[in-house]
């Protein structure tokens, strides 16, 4: 069984990266009775107040067999990387695109492969091939509050959207282990996992995780908290 990344690799300033080992506050799975696509799974992530958590990564213990490598785009808008978290698979590549009117200096010191690009407004980086599994923290050397994560996964992995949900479709029936990760999980805690059975007949399994997160490290600059 290959889990995603157990190893954390880079960090930008102000961030701590060893987030794989984290604690589950509450973990509950329930079978949903409603008929839907055969063999599908929805993973939900919420905080202790029940608010949905976006940018969490759910991984299932089935190796991903790519048809062809794909290219992913990480944009920069308003001094923010979009998306915050992107799942890729070994062999894929990523292009950084600057949609701001200011320069960015995108970089990582990840042992999985360091890179750095100065991007003028409107400019895109050459594609960066990502071949080794792990989490790569990406920063901007001009704006320390800019942070993004590339999760290079060998297994099937999905990112939760604004509604806190990640979907897996067309799953063959069987027993699955779901592992959850988020950049703001407290470091040094055990991995968050749960098992779920996806039935043979048309039902969407749901699995919910309640996560305790650290504050968002992307300090949005404010006149009362200048970032220098």
């Amino acid at each position: 069984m290959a889990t995603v990344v157990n190893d954390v690799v880079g960090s930008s300033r102000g961030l701590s990266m060893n987030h794989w080992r984290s604690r589950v506050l509450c973990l509950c799975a329930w079978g949903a009775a409603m008929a839907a696509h055969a063999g599908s799974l929805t993973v939900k992530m919420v905080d202790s107040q029940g608010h949905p958590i976006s940018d969490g990564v759910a991984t299932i213990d089935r190796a991903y067999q790519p048809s062809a490598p794909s290219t992913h785009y990480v944009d920069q808008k308003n001094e923010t990387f979009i998306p915050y978290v992107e799942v890729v698979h070994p062999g894929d590549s990523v292009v950084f695109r600057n949609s701001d009117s200011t320069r960015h200096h995108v970089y990582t010191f990840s042992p999985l492969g360091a890179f750095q690009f100065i991007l003028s407004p409107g400019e895109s980086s050459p594609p960066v091939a990502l071949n080794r599994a792990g989490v790569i923290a990406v920063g901007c050397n001009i704006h320390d509050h800019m942070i993004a994560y590339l999760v290079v996964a060998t297994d099937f992995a999905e990112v939760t959207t604004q509604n806190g949900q990640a979907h897996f479709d067309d799953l063959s029936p069987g027993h699955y282990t779901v592992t959850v990760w988020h950049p703001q999980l407290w470091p040094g805690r055990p991995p968050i996992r749960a098992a779920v059975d996806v039935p043979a007949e048309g039902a969407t399994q749901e699995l919910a995780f309640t996560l305790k997160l650290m504050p968002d490290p992307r300090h949005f600059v404010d006149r009362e908290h200048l970032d220098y």
Partner: protein
Amino acid sequence: MKVRRLYPMLALLIAATSLRAQDYVLHAYIDERLVAAPDDTSWTNGGFGKTRYGGNQTQLHFGGAALYGAAQITPDLLAMGQVQYQTGDRGRVSLLEGWIRYRPVSTTPWRWSLRAGALFPPVSMENDGVGWTSPWTLSSSAINTWTGEELRAVGGELELEHRGEVSNWDFRASLFRRDDPAGTVLAIRGWSIGDLVSGIGTRLREPDAEVSEEDETPPNYYDPFRSIGASHWGDYVAVSWHAPGETSVSVMHYDNHADPGASAPYAGGDEQYAWRTRFWSAGARTDTGAITWIAQALDGYTTIEPIEDAYQRTHYRSAFLLAGWNRGAWRPALRIEHFSTLTPSSDIDWSQSEHGNAVTGALNWRPRSYLRLTAEVLRIDSTSTLRAEYGLPARIIDTQLQLNVRLLY
């Protein structure tokens, strides 16, 4: 002298305007307040009162204004400057800080950078707003009031960061000049609590009673940021640890290496002494839920030797704990602090001491990103031998109320 000081600012402005508009940022604030002041004459008017405002009056005051500019000249090179405007007798426009930072990218966990210019030594954990203001209270703690009044490093600072898997470390070392009067105000006036920051170009007022005692005519002012005596470098070193979740701990040591026997003539009075000033400073901050906690402590000495082998040494210390509640637009904050100075001497005229406690409660409301309203009450209970020496009550309780409107850009 004044004109010469303008050149770096002009150079900064020219550099900024020659860039594309997108590569620089400007921020500013302007501040007006209604103040109910305590009886005692404020230190800002030559008294021994510990609050910024005194004289038992309730009236409107212009609180100050500042302009912050930062220009990314190249991806590695950042220029930053803050200029303030204050009314009153302290010098109207002054440079709070201004520096150039060279910080090349690093694709290892270590990253170094070098700053050169006029810097605030990294003492304060409160003052990260435009114009070195605090988002928590109007009045800075006693420690950071003094930092704002007399501490500025004109020189260079090397910073080395280690970005770890869990936490980050930050090491700084600085060599600086022009901070030889640092410590004067703690010795001749004692601690104070306010938000009047000195810029380069500002003059600080000496207590009138002390000036008269010297058979001079008040008011007297001195430049807190100058070199006195033989050429030398001061230094500070600081280490910070940044843990996950907004927690950090810092320790620093500062020594201006001034020659305590050195003095120089100055505009206001007879001789301005160099004060050998050394201190340890420690600070910590963390968040528990929506509450931000900040604590700082500072302990040090300042020494002059006006006559050979006759030292006057003032020991000063202070500590505070601040709790700020982050409730969106509303941000209440409460700070408690203690401060003291002690100048032992066999000569009764030289022997002085003070001690006191203060409580600051502030309620900040920020209905718009550009508008902040603050109500603050500050109560200082202090006992000072200096006041008794000049016929004032040794123990005084000052209570100052402020209602403040601040526009932010």
